[in-house]
């Protein structure tokens, strides 16, 4: 009796958590429906500006992409809590197996690509992947995907750039400056290629997601026009229904939204791992560490 009640209450909690995960996305849809001006025909535009706050230097604009990405963050948070609730040593629920699968995969990926020094990296990589993938998948709900705004992806790329520079600086700033001038004549080119890293990462993600959404908008408009031409002989209100637009764009959306979005998330995380692991001067760092340890040991012996 007691266990039955316990099971019922935990199930109620599960449903509550799922509702909390879906709620922010529903709120975004409601906000968009309330503020979106009615438009006809082809409409390709950037993120809507919901409201702006007056600031001394520059007005602060709160746009659709910021609010949508916050909604994604909240949803992913509740999803993680849902997946990791009631963990047991012998898993009896499907969601624990899913959670273990995700953790194992990301651990293996980081281990294969970055080496053993970066063994505390999987949470960060998994966070980047989840944020990027779910942001791109938002377009399935009819919302503006935050990843098709250059500012959002540019922010992530700057974060990754700071991380790369931090790991390149592990052997001191002098070593970092020396790494640019490996052939001295090519130093300016090396600096340019260093700056190009975050730019190319941001443009790659942004361009892929944006081109997918532009193509799907164009195809939707084309199908609407075609069906208006083909079915104009139908009587009454039926002639206004875009029959060709039902279902057909969804097939393309499997590639442009689902596959492309998940692939870009994977590639962004993969490039992060590769750049960070390549930037870290592993041999020199461990050699210096060993030297330091030997010195300390000698001191201890002398005393």
């Amino acid at each position, binding site marked *: 009796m007691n266990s039955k009640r316990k099971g019922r209450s935990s199930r109620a909690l599960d449903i509550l958590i799922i509702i909390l995960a879906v709620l922010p996305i529903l709120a975004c849809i409601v906000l968009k429906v309330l503020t979106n001006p009615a438009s006809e025909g082809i409409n390709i535009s950037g993120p809507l500006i919901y409201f702006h706050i007056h600031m001394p230097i520059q007005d602060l604009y709160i746009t659709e992409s910021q609010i949508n990405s916050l909604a994604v963050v909240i949803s992913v948070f509740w999803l993680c809590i849902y997946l990791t609730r009631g963990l047991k040593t012998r898993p009896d629920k499907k969601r624990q197996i899913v959670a273990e699968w995700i953790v194992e995969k990301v651990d293996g990926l980081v281990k294969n690509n970055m080496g053993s020094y970066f063994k505390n990296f999987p949470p960060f990589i998994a966070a980047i992947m989840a944020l990027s993938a779910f942001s791109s998948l938002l377009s399935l709900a009819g919302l503006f995907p935050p990843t098709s705004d250059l500012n959002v992806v540019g922010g992530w790329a700057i974060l990754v750039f700071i991380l790369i520079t931090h790991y390149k600086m592990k052997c001191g700033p002098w070593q970092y400056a020396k790494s640019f001038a490996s052939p001295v004549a090519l130093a300016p080119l090396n600096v340019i290629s260093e700056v190009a890293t975050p730019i190319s990462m941001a443009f790659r993600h942004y*361009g*892929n997601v944006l081109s997918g959404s532009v193509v799907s908008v164009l195809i939707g408009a084309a199908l609407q026009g075609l069906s208006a031409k083909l079915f104009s002989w139908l009587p009454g209100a039926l002639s206004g229904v875009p029959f060709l637009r039902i279902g057909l764009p969804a097939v393309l959306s499997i590639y442009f939204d689902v596959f492309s979005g998940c692939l870009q998330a994977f*590639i962004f995380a993969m490039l992060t791992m590769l750049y960070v692991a390549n930037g870290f001067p592993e041999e020199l760092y461990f050699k210096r560490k060993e030297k330091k340890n030997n010195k300390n040991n000698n001191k201890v012996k002398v005393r």
Partner: protein
Amino acid sequence: MELAIGIILGACALGAGMAMIAGIGPGIGEGNAVAKACEAIGRQPESKSSVTTTMLMGCAIAETTGLYALVIAILLIFVAPSRLVNILVETMKNV
């Protein structure tokens, strides 16, 4: 005035179209990459997963030049015309 605006719009559209000629390069490059990956999988089917991962990474990096062109084309279509027309209108006012 109308002629100037027309020239601006037309030149922006032409420039966007010309910028997308850069799409040829990544297409050929990715085709080569996928062909080689298929050959490698055919030779060593057990290395399929690692070959696929490496191929996707290489394709993503080969795509970069095409995406630069795409971004420039999108800027030319959606951003440049209105800004250029605004500049034109302001200079005409001053004259």
